[in-house]
């Protein structure tokens, strides 16, 4: 993951965080995200993925250690400047008020006094929501809603997207669509993505994978290098088979026989 030539958007150095006093949850976490990186943050529920993302964008503050955004201390930066660099999409989106797609995407303009380079309409085109500009969020499907939020971050101009389990509760079709969209945007706009997820197979789509267990980083690297039976057992406490195929690289399958073994 360390490529000296690429600049790093995000650096976490020896970060320590705990929700309760005297019981550190995240300890001594360090990793770096290069520009244009496409990283999957993989781990079981409660392993600390959300916490890490929130630390990375400043919602939570580390007890010790440093977090740097483009080489500068994250928390020292003005919140509006920070908003232009990094965008966080939470796991649950409270859509009780019927904003339209266009209204939501336009919120990406909020950190700016002078409008940024990408206009709302252009962003809508990019994600294919132009014809739904006046639709209400409450009328959209889950996948379309997530796409709308991502469209907003385009307008926001953030170079790094932190997505907390955006694929949860989506049908496989929309999961694939969303990941494709992100990859597309990465190519078009060089946007880095860190996505928290717990779908092992989907993790294969990422350029790099960081495995988390109980707040600790237990592995990182390219999926086909780092994902092994052992590490997946450690992360998810489950037995899987990691198979290699010439065309697809690796793929992961679960033991089809779910019946308990007798002997």
């Amino acid at each position, binding site marked *: 993951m360390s490529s000296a030539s690429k600049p790093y958007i995000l650096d976490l150095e020896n970060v320590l965080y705990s929700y309760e006093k005297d019981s550190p949850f995240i300890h001594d976490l360090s990793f770096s995200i290069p520009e244009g990186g496409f990283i999957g943050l993989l781990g079981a529920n409660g392993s600390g993925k959300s916490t890490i993302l*929130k630390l990375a*964008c*400043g*919602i939570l503050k580390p007890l010790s250690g440093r977090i740097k955004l483009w080489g500068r201390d994250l928390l020292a930066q003005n*919140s*509006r*400047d*920070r*908003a*232009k660099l*990094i*965008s*966080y*999409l*939470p796991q*649950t*989106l*409270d*859509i*009780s*008020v*019927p*904003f*339209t797609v266009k*209204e*939501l995407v336009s*919120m*990406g303009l*909020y*950190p700016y006094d002078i409008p940024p380079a990408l206009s709302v309409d252009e962003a809508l085109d990019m994600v294919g929501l132009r014809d739904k500009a006046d639709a*209400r969020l*409450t009328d959209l499907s889950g996948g379309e809603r997530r796409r709308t939020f991502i469209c907003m971050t385009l307008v*926001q101009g953030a170079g790094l997207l932190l997505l907390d389990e955006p694929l949860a509760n989506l049908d496989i079709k929309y999961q694939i669509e969303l990941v494709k969209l992100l990859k597309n945007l990465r190519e078009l706009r060089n946007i880095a993505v860190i996505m928290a997820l717990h779908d092992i197979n989907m993790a294969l789509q990422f350029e790099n994978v960081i495995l988390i267990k109980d707040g600790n980083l237990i592995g990182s690297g390219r999926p086909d290098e780092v994902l092994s039976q052992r590490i997946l057992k450690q992360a998810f406490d489950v037995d899987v088979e990691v198979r290699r195929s010439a065309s697809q690289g690796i793929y992961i399958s679960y033991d089809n026989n779910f019946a308990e073994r007798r002997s």
Partner: protein
Amino acid sequence: MRIFILVFVALFIFCCALFLGPQIIAPGPLSTIEREILFSIRLPRVLVAMLMGMALGASGAVLQGILRNPLADPYILGISSGASLTAALGIIGGMSFLGSFTVPVLAFVGALVTGGIVGMMGWKRGGLWPERLLLAGVGLSFLFSALLMLMMSISTDEGLRRAMLWIFGDLSMSEWSRIPWGLAFVVIGIVLSATRARALNALILGDEFAHSLGFSPQRERFILFVSVGLLTAASVSLGGMIGFIGLLIPHIMRFFMGSDSRMLIPASALGGGSLLCIADLVSRSVLPPMELPAGVVTAIIGAPYFLYLLRKKDVLSI
């Protein structure tokens, strides 16, 4: 743009309320009496109605946003109960240390103190939390209402009647001396909340979402809460409790203007002001020369209209 249509409508309604009255005063040469009525009695009254309605509409829109609750209205936080309690104390206890300013000032102080208590109870770990605010407000509201009822049950009929007339909304005492104060607080409150409208939009979608867009959720919520407190205090001290406007005007305006707070806050202000002007006009003109409580009329006019809109638009946009 739509907001200009609203401004025009509001102005038109203002003029209607001013000239139609219980008896029509046509513009043109006026007798001394008519001029006196128009300038000393009607004009301040309609101005107060507009100001109160604006304060209530705007604060309703803001509150529904920061509490993320479509049923929130300026009174849910107990601010009005506290104000009613202190005002009733003043009325029933026969206080008049500030002349005719006594009851309004008492109401205003009561509102601010209650707002402060609610704010303190809703405060934890460096910020205001919507759920805590809501619960604290509701609890305090019950307490003050009970105290109010207690006070009423032991007071004489005359004091009681006056207190009830005030509580149900009384614009008949509007006079020019109150207007500068009312104007100041209402303008400050609306400007304060309107400048934070973008933050409100973001807050509606969640604290973390707001943070991501570069806002400090706790700071913004606090400022907005203060603006709601000011607006509610100003409104209650100008003319008692007028319900319904803060609750349903934002929803009605949402049908026409969408949910963007930058439009919704001023629109709710204009809508609330217009409704109260109409309601006051009706309360003066239905059984002249008797006057009905304005708060009752707002509900009678507004609620059916809201239900009609709900059916027509066919979508529960809440």
